């Protein structure tokens, strides 16, 4: 089933998903993901950043078909993910795995770690119990936990250890793509660094591709080769992570970057003009979704939505502003000092 038709790349085109909520006053449509396209070349990591409600987690789940997308195409290694059914879908699931944010809800509290790690092997592989045991133990060692811990229950572990177990579960089937949905966001800084190091090691050793969903710009800068910035269900900027953060081309990227608190008191700087909050995805503004908060918006922005267009060799943005809003780093000043 794993005859390779492509080159291991993961390609998403024009992905859209609308949720219909049945409330007291009739049905409301929420366009959670709107015409999103990106590519994760084999062995690279793509970051998906944005604030809550921007649709990044929906993208993560839709590409694994944990949520069925409405339209668009998802192609992994030449295989159409959206068209896969039955055995073909199960075979695809082996190759694409997910790591979650909350280390407390991601493990079944009533199953030992061994049961959790061996179950996928039993479901997917026709191999002996001995081989299954060995594979589970190997996964445990690979994420830096002792073999003996296999017999314990999730509540006996700390948050960081549980996150390692969640990663081990994602690894037992030897996937090629891992979707990390805020995988280090719930962890303390010291543990977060441990998990990031672990993921880096896995990427190098196994040649894994990552779709790394996070709201933390620091983590994304550290981990991702390229980044997509999402706002109200759409990608507003795309490019190499370092370039995007150091020279943002979209006003929202700049706002996001300048709002990120930098651990350096010398980098306090007057706050950039921040107007209002993220509009509700149930009732998005016409034109560019960001225009009500944008200092540089003009007439066109409130009428017609800018498309994501290539600006230079490897960067794209969805903005009409002719001047590249290219502003160097400085952080933002909050205290009057």
């Amino acid at each position, binding site marked *: 089933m794993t005859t390779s038709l492509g080159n291991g790349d993961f390609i998403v085109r024009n992905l859209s998903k609308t949720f219909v909520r049945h409330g007291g006053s009739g049905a409301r449509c929420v366009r959670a993901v709107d015409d999103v396209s990106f590519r994760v070349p084999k062995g690279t990591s793509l970051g998906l950043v944005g*604030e*809550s409600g921007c649709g990044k987690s929906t993208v993560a789940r839709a590409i694994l078909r944990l949520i069925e997308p409405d339209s668009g195409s998802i192609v992994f290694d030449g295989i159409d993910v959206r068209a896969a059914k039955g055995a073909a879908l199960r075979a695809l699931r082996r190759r694409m795995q997910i790591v979650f944010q909350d280390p407390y809800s991601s493990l079944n509290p009533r199953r030992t770690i061994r049961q959790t790690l061996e179950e996928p092997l039993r479901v997917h592989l026709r191999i002996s119990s001995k081989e299954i045991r060995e594979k589970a133990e190997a996964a445990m060692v690979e994420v830096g936990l002792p073999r003996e811990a296999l017999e314990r229950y999730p509540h006996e572990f*700390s*948050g*960081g250890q549980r996150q390692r177990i969640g990663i081990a579960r994602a690894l037992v089937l030897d996937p090629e793509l891992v979707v990390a949905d805020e995988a280090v966001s719930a962890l*303390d*800084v*010291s*543990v*977060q*660094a*441990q998990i*990031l*190091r672990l993921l880096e090691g896995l990427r190098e050793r196994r040649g894994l591709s990552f779709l790394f969903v996070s*709201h*933390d*710009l*620091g*983590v*994304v*800068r*550290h*981990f991702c080769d390229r980044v997509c910035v999402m706002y109200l269900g759409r990608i507003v900027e795309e490019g190499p992570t*370092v370039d995007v*953060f150091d020279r943002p081309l979209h006003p929202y990227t700049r*706002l*996001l*970057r*300048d*709002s*990120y*608190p*930098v*651990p*350096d*008191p*010398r*980098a*306090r700087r007057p*706050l950039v003009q*921040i107007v*209002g*909050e*993220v509009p509700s995805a149930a009732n998005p503004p016409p034109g560019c979704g960001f225009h009500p908060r944008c200092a540089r918006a003009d007439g066109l922005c409130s009428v017609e939505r800018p498309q994501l267009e290539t600006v230079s060799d490897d960067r794209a943005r969805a903005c009409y502003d002719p001047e590249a809003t290219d502003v160097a*780093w400085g*952080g*933002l*000043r*909050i*205290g*009057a000092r």
Partner: protein
Amino acid sequence: MTSFPRPALDLRNLRTEFRIRDRWYPAVRNVSVSLMPNETLAVVGESGSGKSVTALSILRLLPHAGARIQGGEVLFEGQDLVTLSEREMSSIRGNSIAMIFQEPMTSLNPTMTVGDQIAEAILIHRGGSRMQAKAEALRLLEEVKIPSPKSRLDEYPHQFSGGMRQRVMIAMALACHPRVLLADEPTTALDVTIQAQVLSQLEELKQAYGMSMLFITHNLGVVAQIADRVAVMYAGEIVELATVDALFAKPMHPYTAALLRAMPRADRGTENLEPIPGSVPALSAVPAGCSYAPRCPFKERTCLDLHPELVSSGDPGHLVRCPVRPVGGVH
């Protein structure tokens, strides 16, 4: 400075214990720190460091059954809050000392309009008529920059976004012109752009109201943006206390330095992220000597047996709980 001003809030050897399976373990261990007038003191630490428990101990908001303040003093305007009766304490809470929390939703009553809740807080603490209280509530919503405050007074908490709810909480906290604001991870649940708004607003309000602020957070970035001084906590005690500039420029405690090196930064590349090995000790298993020693690359034999004191590092106002730190800061 010739005359040393009296601190707005002075913790002396504060010790708070939790009961786990019928034994008491200290969660806050002899914490001594002063919050000066108009100062923002950040208390930073990872989960389990005791930073939130410290704030809850100040207002005596700990659960009755499983927690107790076992020693020390919390001096506020000449009174020791630890010894006050519950009645006297209630008149301090929300009045001279106010507190805001991480999750504003659980702190608001879902069945009452936001305006009524703020007015209620004003009536309880300051008295006056309902009309005056409503007018004051409107003024407060304007002050925390809630758009179209007049119509929002009559809305319920669930109609507010997370950021707006936190502003409502701040408005309620300000209702009685507190001298001290305890902020327990007030921006942790918010998105970064909203966090930036709330932080700058807190700073403005602190100036306008002449408050002191105890700001509890796990985020060193936020600390760098808002604090005047910083106390770093680990396993229930302060391990380093310094001005914000000194702490980031020249961290003295190996833990502080390690935290800074473990944090990925958005503004520059961090090729070598250095995780701290191991994990924070459990409340019931804090090491006898230096509590950080098992994770510390600089530890010496004595670190495992001898509990270090918080002493001057040599630089004025910079205290550190580590006798073997490399001279000139850990880099």
